[in-house]
């Protein structure tokens, strides 16, 4: 009985270890995030753009998409350029939201809304690797920086998904 129990426990452990995803090496050497520009009519403070830039870099580092996440305008070795990404984009729409509407109606009504478009290009030849559209909605009572956090997370998640699929052989 003890032997049986021990073998069952060992088997479960072995399955668990096998199921754990392996730490894959990052696909790219460097990733550079640029400050996003704001479209005309978007009423967001420059502090928001700064914070979003920092969050985007933090998320890119966490996602392990590249060996190194570099700052805006940093030089990259020519040898590394074909395996380097540049992320730039525009905040296309921002709606402030309405607290009263959100409290009275609920179900997402009156939420703050943010729409962004991002382009991921290869550094060496400026070839577009993917174009992303992110739409984030948050409670109007929340700080706009929390919205930046959510948007950065969503963007990197989408980016990783698209780039990983793109790297797979057809």
């Amino acid at each position: 009985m003890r032997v049986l129990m021990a073998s069952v426990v060992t088997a479960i452990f072995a399955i668990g270890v096998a199921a754990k995803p392996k730490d894959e090496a990052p696909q790219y050497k460097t990733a550079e995030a640029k400050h996003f520009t704001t479209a005309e009519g978007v009423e967001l403070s420059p502090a928001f753009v700064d914070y979003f830039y920092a969050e985007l870099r933090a998320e890119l580092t966490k996602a392990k998409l590249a060996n190194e996440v570099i700052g805006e305008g940093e030089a990259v070795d020519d040898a590394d350029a074909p395996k380097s990404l540049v992320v730039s984009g525009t905040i296309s729409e921002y709606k402030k939201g309405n607290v009263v509407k959100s409290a009275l109606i609920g179900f997402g009504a009156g939420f703050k809304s943010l729409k962004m478009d991002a382009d991921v290009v290869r550094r060496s030849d400026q070839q577009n690797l993917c174009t992303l559209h992110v739409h984030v909605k948050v409670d109007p009572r929340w700080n706009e920086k929390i919205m930046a956090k959510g948007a950065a997370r969503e963007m990197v998640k989408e980016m990783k998904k698209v780039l990983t699929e793109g790297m797979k052989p057809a």
Partner: protein
Amino acid sequence: MSSYWRAKTPVFLRCTLLQPVLFIVAVLTLLASLRAKADEPKPKPENTISIQLGEPIPPQRFEHPPKFWIADVTDRSGSPQPMLVMKERGGLFLDKQPTVILKEAIEQSLKAADLLASDQGSADLVLRLYLFHFGLASGSGLDFFGKVEFSTIVKNAKTRESQEVKAVGTSIASGAFRKKNMQKNVEEDIEAALRDATRNFLRGTQLKEAVTALLKGADGTPAAAPGGGTSPKPTSN
């Protein structure tokens, strides 16, 4: 009511009643002002952090490596207390002026790469730094947002031509409830932002272009875009 009180109460009694009231109001005002003064955080060893670069940042490779010299660092943050990082929770202070920390960080990295001149006279390019932000910036409230932003006037010592190079470093660290953890996280956060800003400056394409243009100017060819040596204005925060 007041006219009735005035009519019924003699003048001498009115004065004797008013005086203690005025005295109490004065005492309370004094106490409130003293308390407000006591709430102002003061630097103590337990609420002071030390920011260091750690390992020097290797600068980019230049075609003709110049010798740099940091002439001075000017604080343009506009903060009345540049060493105060955080006012809440008893305050958090830096052990040195931000300008000193930044100067040391850049000098350390230039020296490690043998790009630092021994004195201003022997330098090819003289750097004047203008610090716009050092420390924490407004974040989401759930974390700490560290930011170091500065601008540099790179000046050719011989031709007197100059160019501006901007650098910014950011870092986001997780928030903390315990004061000890908070201090640790803030220290790491600002150190990471300082490293990032130093790297952004030393490995930036702006510096490369400035060095190329200014040294080209020294060879006899005119520089690409001389900056004129005026102090830069802070960028939008």
